[in-house]
């Protein structure tokens, strides 16, 4: 499984000639701060957008995004391209931190917090890179339409809601134990629709 990657990866915005994320990560591991800055620029909107969706509170989300990038910097040497893409590795770190944050003691307050991110959505017309990102977003949304409604909702609640499959089952009135199957089936369908290859 040396070539796991979403296709297209989104790692190299077309026309910019930017280095691959894995290369940036590799250079970061050797202490190259400019490579890390480029890695940040290429991924921060996706990382932060995800973190914000999960956490909702903007200042906490900024903290978690910051912590996640710090962890990426500290542990860049441990990234193994044979086990997955750089983007997946980085988002896995950030997602886990987000979920840990919302499930920790303060969790109870988050559902009272206003959902702020709409006002700060990326300006998709700003740069060629953002335009590519917008196209990617459309492709992903399109692929998500191929999922059943239950699969789609289960994945949204799990990934962006930070809920456990047991909680998702309750929220979707599914028999206990079936939400995990919906999540898995939905991710498999998304994976296959987007041509993520193993």
């Amino acid at each position: 499984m040396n070539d796991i990657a979403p296709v297209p990866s989104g790692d190299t915005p077309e026309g910019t000639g930017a280095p691959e994320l894995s290369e940036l990560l590799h250079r970061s591991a050797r202490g190259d701060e400019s490579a890390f800055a480029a890695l940040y620029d290429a991924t921060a909107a996706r990382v932060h957008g995800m973190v914000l969706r999960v956490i909702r509170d903007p200042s906490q989300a900024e903290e978690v995004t910051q912590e996640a990038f710090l962890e990426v910097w500290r542990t860049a040497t441990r990234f193994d391209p044979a086990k997955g893409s750089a983007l997946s590795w980085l988002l896995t770190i950030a997602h886990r931190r987000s979920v840990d944050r919302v499930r920790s003691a303060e969790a109870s307050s988050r559902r009272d917090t206003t959902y702020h991110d709409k006002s700060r959505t990326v300006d998709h017309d700003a740069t060629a890179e953002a335009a590519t990102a917008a196209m990617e977003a459309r492709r992903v949304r399109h692929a998500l339409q191929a999922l059943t409604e239950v699969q789609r909702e289960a994945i949204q609640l799990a990934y962006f809601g930070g809920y456990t499959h047991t909680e998702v089952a309750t929220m979707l009135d599914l028999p206990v134990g079936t939400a995990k199957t919906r999540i898995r089936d939905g991710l498999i369908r998304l994976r296959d629709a987007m041509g993520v290859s193993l």
Partner: protein
Amino acid sequence: MSEIHALSGAYAVDAVNDVERKLFEQHLAHCPDCRDEVASLREAASLLPETAAVAPPPALRDRVLAEIASVRPLPPVTVETGPVEPTNVTSLAARRRRRLPALAAAAAVAAMLGAGAVAWQPWETTPEVQQRQLTAAERIAAADDAQEIVHEFEGGAVATVIRSRELGQAVITTSDMPAAPAGKVYQLWLQDPTGQMRPAGLMEPLPAQTVVLEGDAASARAAGITVEPAGGSERPTTAPLAVFDFERSV
């Protein structure tokens, strides 16, 4: 497909509780198919943020870049081989996420069972004690100076000792341990700075468990496991099954 395999998707998107995560990670250690599946499902999940992109404030970029300038990237994971085969020594940090859950699995399950209606343990352990141990174990594993030493026994059993000098504590977690011979028990030891082996507690008769070692782990040179008569000994009476050398792994 067994029940545990079905968790791959929920695990890939962190939609599992702590106990499920620990159990599934123990399963992953033995199931390459699930590892591949989780990797592929994480790739799929990594597409989702495309639909949610929000640029963070520019000040965050400044803070991140200022912060990393003062933080040294961890060294890569390397496997050292030394005179005490086959103990592999690695620094913990990057594997913490994978290891820590595996570490506390047994205690977590015991805590869960202890708290629920099922009380099948033949020995007396209150849920409170188990809970405290789990918390201590997690704290040790998460410590910045955590040192991890893995010992793989012939036959597939694995024992991992994690020591935090700062916390002055060490914790051992085992998996697939064969039962000690009848009338015997696995006893834990800490070797003090003078080379003396100090009793550090007894292990429960369980194939997989997590035990916080008793005694001063900060100054200890090593930890060890021996087989002792039931009830334990004041001094080791048999050659150690495993030695975890803290000084070699610094």
